[in-house]
């Protein structure tokens, strides 16, 4: 008789709840004729809330489950929460998008829930296998989601490109994992850590580490592994683009940080230089390329690349300050970017016809609140106080300066000064330019209104009173050190 492995369903309850909710929505909508989208959204939201409740106890745990495959700790808790927030907000911003376009796509929510569950596994992983499974669960769902718009060539193209490059990067990641396995004999993060501390590190392990790094760099869209980002972000449905830019990035960074700080910390000198170069390239290219875009989704795509660069600074700085900076940054970024993409979805209207910067001209005249919200998000992205984005950048930069990376931070602030140009250009379009035709007065719909209100107020609130959230982030990275 094989000994029954240790099973801790309570630990993975949030992901479990999401999966079950996904299955339920899927079946429910199969047997519904009409009104499937709102119903699916409501059930999804309920599932997300329940998952949030199920998540709360993780905060006080610090243990491993499933024979060391999964870590249940505050770090997991934080990212689970972040993912749930992202998923919930995305559900809210998607409802109107789908009903407006008369898309009867209740699968959208199903896949959203599944991918969130995948992300949760990824962030809680304590083993490369779990990371891989979570990664693929989320990726495959997102591949489909990206191409879910029927009769939309760009959407299909986005899905295709995402899939090809996503699978490619997964393969690289896996090969790296295989080489590490060959070196260390195991893929559990603690075992890897032990191996790297042993001092007898083979050439192969370094190559494996490098490939792992490349795989992660792909997922977080760091230059030069960012090629897929603009196309995919442009083609995918707008609310989903928001989710991708936030959720996928958060999950990827969560795993990235966990692997590199839990297992590879003893060879930090070997990867920190690589990250330094990546970060600089990412910040520079992301921001510069964003300047020349005329499609707002593309612009935000490059901006999200640039933000990956800033987050990488947090990784380079390392320590508790740097990593907790990453957490706070991602929290701020989640609300900000989801809000921004919510606005993009709303302004884009049917079939995403209006996704060009010029479509934002005079928006403030007809939709003052929408313009105000968008401005808040853009200011936060640009890192201007008193928004959350500022505190995020501040934490990360300060961590880097503390470690002596002055030049890195100087590059960071200079590029973010450049970023002001393109963020403010949108503000300019909204407030200062007059359109040829008066833009339509847009109907928010309750869900979108709720989402944007939450996003905007949170961006301001945690920007002005960041203390609690900084503490939260600081406590959440404790398990890593």
């Amino acid at each position, binding site marked *: 008789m094989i000994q029954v492995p240790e099973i801790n369903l309570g630990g993975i309850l949030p992901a479990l709840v999401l999966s079950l909710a996904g299955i339920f929505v899927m079946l429910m909508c199969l047997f519904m004729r009409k009104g499937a989208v709102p119903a699916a959204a409501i059930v999804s939201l309920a599932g997300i809330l329940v998952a949030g409740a199920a998540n709360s106890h993780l905060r006080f745990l610090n243990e491993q489950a499933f024979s060391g495959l999964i870590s249940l700790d505050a770090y997991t808790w934080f990212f689970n929460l972040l993912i749930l927030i992202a998923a919930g907000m995305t559900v809210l911003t998607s409802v109107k998008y789908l009903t407006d376009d008369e898309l009867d796509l209740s699968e959208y929510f199903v896949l959203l829930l599944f991918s969130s569950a995948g992300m949760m596994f990824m962030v809680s992983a304590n083993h490369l296998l779990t990371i891989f499974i979570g990664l693929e669960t989320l990726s495959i769902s997102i591949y489909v989601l990206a191409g879910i718009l029927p009769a939309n060539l760009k959407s299909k193209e986005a899905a295709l490109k995402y899939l090809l490059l996503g699978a490619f990067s997964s393969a690289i990641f896996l090969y790296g994992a295989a080489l590490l396995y060959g070196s260390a004999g195991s893929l559990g993060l603690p075992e890897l850590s032990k191996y790297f501390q042993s001092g007898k590190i083979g050439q192969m392990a370094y190559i494996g580490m490098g490939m792992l790094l490349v795989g992660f760099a792909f997922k977080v869209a760091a230059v030069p592994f960012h090629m897929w980002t603009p196309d995919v972000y442009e083609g995918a449905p707008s609310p989903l683009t928001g989710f991708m830019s936030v959720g996928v990035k958060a999950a990827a960074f969560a795993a990235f940080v966990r692997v590199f700080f839990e297992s590879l910390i003893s060879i930090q000198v070997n990867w920190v230089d690589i990250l330094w170069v990546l970060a600089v390239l990412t910040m520079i290219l992301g921001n510069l390329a964003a300047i020349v875009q005329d499609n707002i989704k593309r612009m935000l795509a490059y901006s999200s690349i640039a933000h990956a660069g800033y987050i990488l600074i947090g990784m380079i700085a390392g320590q508790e300050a740097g990593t907790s900076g990453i957490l706070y940054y991602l929290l701020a970024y989640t609300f900000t970017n989801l809000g921004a993409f919510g606005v993009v979805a709303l302004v884009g209207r049917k079939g995403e016809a209006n996704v060009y910067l010029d479509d934002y001209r005079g928006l403030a005249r007809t939709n003052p609140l929408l313009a105000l919200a968008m401005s808040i998000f853009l200011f936060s992205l640009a890192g201007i106080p008193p928004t959350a984005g500022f505190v995020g950048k501040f934490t990360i*930069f300060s961590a880097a300066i503390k470690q002596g990376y002055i030049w890195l931070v100087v590059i960071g*602030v200079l590029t973010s000064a450049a970023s002001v140009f393109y963020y403010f250009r949108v503000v300019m379009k909204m*407030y200062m330019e007059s359109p040829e035709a008066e833009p339509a007065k847009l109907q928010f719909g309750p869900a979108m209104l709720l989402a944007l209100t939450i996003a905007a107020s949170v961006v301001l609130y945690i920007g002005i009173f960041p203390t609690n959230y900084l503490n939260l982030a600081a406590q959440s990275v404790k398990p890593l050190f």
Partner: protein
Amino acid sequence: MENASFPLLSLITFIPLIGAILLLILNRESKTLLRWVALIFMLADFVVSIAALGWFDASSPNMQLVENRVWIADWGISYKLGIDGISLFLVLLTTLLGPIVVLASWEDIQTRVKEFLISLLILQVGMIGVFVSLDLFLFYVFWEVMLIPMYLLIGVWGNPARRLYAAIKFVLYTIVGSLLMLVAILALYFMAGQSTGTYTFDLLKLYDFAVPLKAQFWMFLAFFLAFAIKVPMFPFHTWLPDAHTEAPTVGSVVLAAVLLKMGTYGFIRFAIPLFPNAAADATWWICVLSVIGVIYGAWVAMVQVDVKRLVAFSSVSHLGFVMLGMFAFTSQGVEGSILQMINHGLSTGALFLIVGMIYERRHTRLIAEFGGLSKVMPLFAVFFMIFTLSSIGLPGLNGFVGEFLILLGTFKVYPVYAVLAASGVIFAAVYMLWMFQRVMFGKVTNPKNLGLPDLSAREVLVLVPILVFVVWIGVYPNTFLQPMAAPVKKFLSHVETKKTAVLNMEKAKKQTNVGQAEVAITSLPVENRR
């Protein structure tokens, strides 16, 4: 330092914000109501700030009305406000200009009044906040906060032709400087924290921290960049003429009167006391740049055909004086420079208002379009004359006192610069009077100017308070100089003592451990430095 019994400074800072929030929920169609609300809040702010004078001890060199609350405890960030004789009048200047700009915009701004007033009020918050904050983080937040409303003021209500260009130029210039300053702030924070053990952004505590020389240089450079752009010092001034010219009248007024002062104030409050050695080392080239600014600004102003642009370039020139006085490090020089900040705020602000008034009537600002206005608008001519003379520095008016003190203070230490700068006064007289002559005197050549109405009661109301102060300072400057004396003295002695302290420290370090000097200088962890 104990908390003040009543959060007076917070009140002054945030009254406009309350107004802005109130405006947010008011109906956008009832423009008059909106204006009244804004005016009332601005006035209330002014009244409260006057009231603050009652608590203010003019003889004390210390920070007063201090409020100190923990904001982000883990990082030693506090919500710390306070004023001394240096910032007192800048705050007053700001609150004084508040109601004036609202009044001045009464008829000028007709589109999107609500947003305009909200921007104005938030701008007010940011400006006051910069002057009263005693925490570097808080200061930085306010510094950036005022960027956005100013950007909107220029970009939305500016002159249609080039306002977008001017707005983005303003933002980019400002933000590049301020972000680098942020880096320096952070570096200072960690350096101080690592050597003293307490991590804090508290300005007064950081004052006492002796920054090693090499680090001082870089940090001062970063601060210098941020402030010099704001001042604006030559050669960082290129955004200013564009911003001034394209901004609406009110925008120009605020920009000239208050925003530029934030740069000079930044030097006196932050850059110099924090990094005295670097500041002392930088004196010669800053003085050179200031003198260049004085003369260059004057020359360029001379050839301008646009009145507003002319006034804008005169600002470059005037602020050169302010910088020069400050870097003389004599009590007259510094006092004069602080006083000159106020003077410039009053007279240049008033000049922009004047320009705005004729612009409202004629929709042009080209000097050539005018001529002989004094006959058509006598009252206007009187005001214009007085402010022009004030700007030139005619004895008996405010400008004279400031410039005189500056030149006096500078002459003691740098006679050459003083002489060169003095030529700027002469040039100023030339271009201002020449302009005045072309606009106001002679025959009315342009028939369009014939029927121009004279100043309305509202416009007089706008100009009179400024006039009062212009004359007051000119005739009895002691009211203003007296509260400055103690803090300026403290400022100078602080700079001196800290300078020697740092030098001694460096010397000691060199003696004890020559090899490690490099490490100690920056006191940052070296193993990861890049």
